[in-house]
């Protein structure tokens, strides 16, 4: 009994140290990616190619999810707002929820599962099939040629995807609020325009999605680069990317919301 308790305590301690170690390794990896980023800017074509694979190919899932979420917000919001006779504010509710919270967070979660997992699996398999070692033996740094372009592509794509998610969501809210339920068209848009502040609301969302973009791509590229070169290794790394990204996004969202709201009135 005592032995079992001791062993589980030791396991908890071991996992704790292991995770702290991973955070340290990831931070070091992040610095190395930044240091190896010169090539990505000199040969921007490399980054654009990855923007296509990570950003453009995530568009469908981002746009469709944005539309659905906007429509649900419209329905739920209308239900509550009409109790207070404030159904014209439905546009405000949909737009603010999207640009400040749901746009950056949900699009980052979708990005992590669509593009993040793909990045991890691709890099993990490149490692397992010795493609990264081969590149290194050709005197081409895999960090500069493979990792950094994928990192910057993610960082560039994420805010744009979040913006498109929010735009699509507002359109979904419009479809439900104005077209389906019949809220006044003019009131819907003018109230939204008056209540949404560019600096406090829109820019906060952009900052968030930028930070999420960095977090997701660092996690995805690190997990791929660190994956044991076996089938289980790569599948485990892919799972870890999605789980750690989701946790990181939600934790960072709390921190960012708390610090960005401070100046808000």
């Amino acid at each position, binding site marked *: 009994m005592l032995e079992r308790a001791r062993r589980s305590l030791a396991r908890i301690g071991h996992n704790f140290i292991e995770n702290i170690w991973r955070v340290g390794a990831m931070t070091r990896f992040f610095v190395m990616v930044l240091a190896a980023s010169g090539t990505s800017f000199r040969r921007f074509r490399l980054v654009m190619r990855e923007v296509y694979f990570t950003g453009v190919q995530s568009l469908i899932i981002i746009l469709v999810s944005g539309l659905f979420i906007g429509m649900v917000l419209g329905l739920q919001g209308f239900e509550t707002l009409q109790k207070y006779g404030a159904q014209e504010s439905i546009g405000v509710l949909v737009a603010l929820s999207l640009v400040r919270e749901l746009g950056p967070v949900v699009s980052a979660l979708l990005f992590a599962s669509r593009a993040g997992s793909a990045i991890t699996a691709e890099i993990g398999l*490149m490692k397992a099939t*010795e493609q990264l070692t*081969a590149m290194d033996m050709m*005197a*081409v740094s895999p960090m500069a040629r493979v990792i950094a372009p994928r990192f910057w592509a993610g960082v560039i794509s994420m805010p744009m995807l979040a913006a498109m998610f929010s735009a699509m969501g507002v359109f979904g809210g419009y479809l439900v609020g104005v077209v389906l339920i019949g809220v006044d068209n003019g009131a819907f848009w003018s109230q939204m325009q008056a209540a949404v502040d560019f600096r406090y609301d829109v820019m906060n969302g952009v900052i968030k999605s930028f930070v999420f973009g960095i977090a997701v791509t660092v996690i995805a590229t690190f997990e791929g680069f660190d994956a044991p070169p076996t089938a289980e290794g790569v599948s485990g790394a892919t799972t870890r990317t999605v789980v750690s990204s989701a946790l990181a996004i939600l934790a960072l969202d709390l921190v960012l919301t708390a610090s960005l709201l401070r100046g808000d009135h």
Partner: protein
Amino acid sequence: MTAENLVEIDAVTFGYGRRLVLEGINMRVPRGKVVAIMGGSGCGKTTLLRLIGGQLRPTSGAVRVGGQAVHELDRDGLYALRRRMSMQFQFGALFTDMTVFDNVAFPLREHADLTEDMVRDLVLMKLEAVGLRGAHNLMPSELSGGMARRVALARAVVMDPMLVMYDEPFAGLDPIAMSVVGSLIRRLNDALGATSIVVTHDVVESLQIVDYLYFVAEGRVVGEGTPAQIRATTLPVVHQFVHGEIDGPVPFHYPAPTYDEDLGLAQARAEAAHA
């Protein structure tokens, strides 16, 4: 360092943690020759290639390529040296997201400031040499194992390196593909004036194409010589390897307690006697 040796390995010892993989290895690879490093699986052959390529550093001893001590180079020095050497990996390690053409063109585009026309000419010349000019538009997934190995060969020599290292170039190939790859290694080496190191466990094929062989077992060089000397050798380890004998100095059994002990026979016998 003598001028006629491109690669010199002096008393190299290497280990992962406490486990020693190589112990006091000495080797010479003369310029222009094809030298084979042979031995059973897991005997440290690939580790030797990694030491020559500077991916690993020896625990003690020295590895010199073209007069430069590889283990003392910094990253820039190592990359400068690697531009003049190349390595072909066991399964080709072709970049799966690029066509055959782009794979072979990769080192040129990364390192040489050439026009796309010149890149095209050079790539097609190398692909012609390995007989795959017609396959330049295929993706690596569309190639057979032997073809992939030949593309990797073309990529390995596209920069006209002074040293080419092959890690198990014959593994998993059918007899025809094996002779094709074997003769290509020899022909490309002679045509380019390069030096080649072939790490392999395929005795028959390598005895036909190489100038000199080293046998490695349990981290040591246990035999060496020209193909004729190796065929005639009486050294037990080399003899067992060349003739593929099941048991010998390289034992069939993994170290274990005695069979009787493991099955509990001794105890059963004692109990039976007691009863």
